[in-house]
């Protein structure tokens, strides 16, 4: 199942999620109000970082498998290890920064955005889901 067809909307969704998460976490800190003027311009670097991370760290898993391997199989096969490694790396950087607030916000955002991106990328589109269910029903009736 080709997830790259749906990549652009997913990257847009991931960028939106990352922006909201990052600014929600940052807004709780004691920083000046003038920083809020950076919310809109910040979307550009967030989009670049988000897209690069998704394309470089998640998309290769889809390339590793043959074309007809369903997305849910790819999810089950790689997501557990990916999430564990991502969590370990994020925790390491947070710990190394001595729990610096901005670093915490960055890596918490990165972790949750990446996990949600996996779900979006591997989600089987509704029409395909229906088709699969119908096919299964037909097979079942034949038996």
């Amino acid at each position, binding site marked *: 199942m080709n997830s790259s067809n749906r990549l652009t909307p997913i990257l847009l969704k991931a960028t939106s999620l990352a922006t909201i998460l990052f600014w929600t976490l940052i807004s709780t*800190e004691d920083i000046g109000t003038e920083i809020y003027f950076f919310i809109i311009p910040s979307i550009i670097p967030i989009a670049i970082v988000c897209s690069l991370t998704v394309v470089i760290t998640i998309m290769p898993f889809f390339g590793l498998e043959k074309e007809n391997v369903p997305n849910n199989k790819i999810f089950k096969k790689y997501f557990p290890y990916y*999430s*564990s490694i991502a969590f370990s790396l994020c925790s390491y950087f947070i710990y190394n920064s001595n729990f610096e607030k901005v670093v915490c916000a960055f890596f918490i955002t990165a972790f949750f955005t990446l996990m949600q991106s996996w779900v979006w990328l591997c989600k089987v589109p509704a029409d395909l*889901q*229906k088709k699969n*269910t119908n096919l299964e029903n037909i097979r079942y009736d034949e038996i």
Partner: protein
Amino acid sequence: MKNVTLLISAVLFSTLYYKQNIGLNLSLFTLLTVLLLVLKNRELFKNKSTNYKIIGYLITGTTVFLYKSDLTIIANIIAFFTLIGNVSAHKSSIYVQWLNGMYTAIVSAFSLYYDSLNTETKQLKKVKINYVYWLKIIGIPATIIIIFINLYRNGNPMFDELILKIDFSFINLHWMLFVLLGYYLFYNITHPIKIEPLTSSDICTKNYLEKDTLEAISLLQLKNEKQLGIVLMLSLNALIIFFLITDILHLSEIHNMLASQLSKQVHTGVNALIFSNILAIAIILYFFRGNLNFFENNTDLKKLTFVWIFLNVSVVIITAIKNIEYIVSFGLTYKRIGVLFFLAATSIGLITTYIKVSKIKNLWYLLRKNTQIAFVILLLASTINWDKIITYYNINTADQVDLKYLINLSDNNTFLLKDYIEENKVDTKKTLHINRKYNRYMTDLENNSWQEMVYDNLKIKK
């Protein structure tokens, strides 16, 4: 009901951790996790291995309160992942439990959400959630209660005063996010998941070698391999005996050595031991990887292997003697204790290798047993207040006291050092450092909130 329990736990999580350092909160979190897991699944108590994991986890939780250190915190986190992984699949190996525990604790919600997205029936169920109903159930009573509270406040000055006293200032967006994080964490741990196919294949893999599953090999090849093994083991045994004799002779000179010489001896000895043991186990595993285990004429090779294992254990004992001698003369340090732990682990590794060969077990058996033992050693090590023991031993028994080293240890030895400078003559610079350490620790203890409390807080209150 399930959601209410999770919500209460999440609020407790935020109360315990929001803007707090580690202390009593981690111990209470440990207790809360166990309670929640048992509430969710009462069958848990019926499983022996889960009970052991619960006990281990509770012990690490208690040690964090008694003498907080990096080791106790790390042991607590590892015990947490082990317990969660055990709840996911209690029959799996401990390293698979670590992976399952971590996977469950960090992303169970995402995995379950993904499954629900791809199941049509569940999607239909989702649509059926009646938001208007929930808005009515929560919104209407809340609005009416607020109206009545305001009415009563106007009617009764005492009630008004009481309401004004309730301080909700701690509730802010950050606190709410902590609640959300707590809810996410508790949701994850109460919904255990497994990594597949890893877990099922691990459960299916037995601990022993099966003759039928091995690749067929000719008798000549087997004989050649056995011969090679015998020659190699014979030469290795001869070499290690020669090494042992020289080492034992060398032991008698140990008392006359300078500190630097002894230190060099112990460190090079340990390094050599690491390599020789890894190599020893690798060679044994190579020869006893398959068919040779079932070869009828393998008794000689087996005997030579057992002798080699025994001789390797002897090398471990001699290195341990050197290390103990070093400790007696120059005191305890973390490095020297670490060497003792390493030697203990090496001996256990050699013993499990002996069992593997004698009982025809496979590589998985070795991996399983050794990781299990390493986990138990970690738990046991975390139950000891090392900083206090090191300080107590060095100031009371060791021939030389390195106060600079003791001052740089964690706060667990502060009271001992303070007593030491009060009872002994110590140079001014070091007394100053110890007093500074003591004053800083006392300030920290006094400033500790109830969440950050440690056992030393109770001592200073007396």
